[in-house]
């Protein structure tokens, strides 16, 4: 896809970058972990079956051999307890990266994540921070149904104290993971499985994608589309169709879900006067709701139509392919929404 090239924001890969290769999102994640562990002995990976042959959809392949099972730790199936263990290690000088294969399992650990990690620095009056990274693979499809395909960014962003990132490109998959692992705070990264094969131009060196900054993937003039994760790709596909029909959408990859780049989006909406938000999650109080509410506050007079949200339907994920196919919105919904907010 052409836009993966221009979207490398060279500003955060340093001047004397060691070269840029075509890497998949999966490889980019793997490389980030390898480089992080090589350069910082405090960093280690943990999670259920992360050392196995599948290697967390290929993102940890080879790391157990390279770093040993003390730094690539297969854990018991005990998400809440092991999150507590990770927090304990984090506050005592280590930098754990806890990997979950599915977002649904993170829900089991919300006591430790929300009651503990999110509040520890505050409760301690700024003395003890929790440098914990949670990597979680999200996805959809193949009838995995209601307990294996959820989108949880809406749950993780609500309470203060946790940062949430959703890379849409290989570059950001690497850059945001590095940023997360170096962040002294709890950070959750949600990586979409359908993006793992997508390639992009990824610098060799260890670089950070700055947390809190969105990425404009396509410049446009008459409508702003803010998208998260795989919806960025759907939006780019939609843009081709829309462009052929005479629309000129500006597409913003939100990337950093919390904190988020309200200035970038507000500036775009001031220009375009229209906003469509395409999130992978649910509607009620989701990421799209926050963006809609906040951008409407910031750009009320510029907005020509109300912000349109594209989110999941109000139902758990169904198993049958016939339902699953219509459950997840994509480029068609984005095209329709853009035409609609543009007045037909």
């Amino acid at each position, binding site marked *: 896809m052409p836009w993966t090239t221009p979207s490398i924001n060279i500003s955060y890969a340093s001047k004397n970058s060691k070269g840029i290769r075509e890497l998949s999102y999966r490889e980019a994640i793997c490389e980030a972990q390898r480089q992080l562990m090589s350069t910082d002995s405090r960093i280690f990976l943990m999670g*259920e*079956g992360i050392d196995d042959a*599948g290697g967390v959809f290929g993102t940890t392949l080879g790391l157990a051999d390279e770093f040993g099972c003390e730094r690539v730790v297969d854990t018991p199936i005990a998400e*809440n307890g092991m999150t507590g263990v990770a927090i304990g290690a984090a506050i005592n000088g280590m930098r754990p990266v806890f990997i979950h294969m599915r977002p649904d399992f993170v829900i089991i650990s919300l006591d430790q994540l929300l009651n503990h990690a999110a509040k520890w620095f505050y409760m301690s009056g700024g003395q003890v921070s929790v440098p914990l990274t949670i990597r979680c693979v999200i996805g959809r499809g*193949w009838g995995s*149904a209601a307990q*294996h395909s959820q989108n949880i960014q809406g749950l993780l962003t609500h309470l203060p104290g946790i940062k949430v990132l959703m890379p849409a490109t290989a570059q950001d998959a690497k850059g945001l993971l590095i940023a997360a692992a170096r962040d002294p705070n709890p950070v959750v990264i949600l990586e979409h499985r359908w993006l793992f094969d997508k390639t992009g131009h990824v610098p060799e060196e260890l670089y950070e994608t700055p947390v809190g900054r969105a990425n404009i993937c396509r410049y446009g003039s008459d409508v702003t589309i803010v998208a998260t994760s795989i919806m960025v790709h759907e939006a780019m596909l939609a843009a081709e169709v829309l462009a052929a029909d005479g629309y000129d959408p500006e597409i913003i990859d939100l990337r950093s879900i919390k904190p988020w780049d309200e200035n970038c989006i507000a500036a775009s909406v001031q220009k375009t006067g229209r906003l469509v938000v395409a999130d992978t999650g649910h509607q009620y109080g989701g990421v799209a709701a926050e963006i809609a509410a906040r951008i409407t506050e910031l750009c009320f007079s510029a907005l020509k139509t109300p912000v349109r949200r594209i989110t999941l339907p109000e139902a758990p994920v*169904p198993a049958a392919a016939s339902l699953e196919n219509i459950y997840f919105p994509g480029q068609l919904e984005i095209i329709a929404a853009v035409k609609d907010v543009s007045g037909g």
Partner: protein
Amino acid sequence: MTMPSPNDNTKRLLFKKMLLIRHFEQKIAELYPEQEIRTPVHLCVGQEAVAAGVCAHLRPADLIFSTHRNHGHCLAKGMSVKKMLAEFYGKESGCCGGKGGSMHPCAPEHGILGTSAIVGGGIPMAVGAAWAEQMRNGDNIAVAFFGDGATEEGTFHESLNFAALKNIPVVFICENNLYATASPIRHRQPAAGSIAAKAKGYGLPGELINGNDVIEVYQRVGEAVERARRGQGPTLIEAETFRWFAHVGPVDDTETGHRSADELARWKNKCPIRRMRDHLTIENILKSEDEKNWSIEFDINFAGALTFAKESVPPTKELLTTHVFA
């Protein structure tokens, strides 16, 4: 208080049930590459004796709570092959109307009130369902099936504590197949501990049994079921067994990870079906044509169910948002 060995007829039925499960799973394994079953399947080939031996003691109104690896339990409890298959094929005629897929089978008429694919998720629900029976002074019981991995979850502990506290008529059946996905138990549990031994901490009987010997399963679980039904409280049973396929899908996972071909071969040698066949043959309980006849019966049944499943209609889009609330 050991339950006597099952009589000849029961032995035949146990054997036939295992064959049914094996037959079903192998058919699924054959069909899966067609990619018309678009839902992950967690096959239980190698573990049939546990499902058969446990469910032989249960009435239709007794309840079971299973896991992602539920096919054997559901079939043994009476679930219709037709409805199960239709569910796998994503059809409205499936046991969940197509909404659950392979991981959440539901058949209230057979005591299957739904299934959780969250590891450890179904254990407290089994306790609660059995508690409801107790509160109503009923004499139905509940069985919680779960894997070795599930015993690492907090819900396992919380469930044992509450069931022991209230003397709830539930039987905890842990199928210890030594792996959770590709992760061997030695990565997850201390070698010096044991699953069955945990029962003592709650004052419960905890027993390690050979999960590949359907007669042993039948006898030992039979005692536990009777205890529960008589109001003598819960039992934890750890049944050692092994799955032949990979964690998910009809795949051989040996030599790609922690499971070795050797280990699998050793366990195939302990095949629960072969073991029972040998026993029945020695004891002269099996008629020579039995297996062949059953196999024909299963084939015919399965073929009919498959036609039903394939010809059923998928749920239409109006159903996408129904059943969110009752």
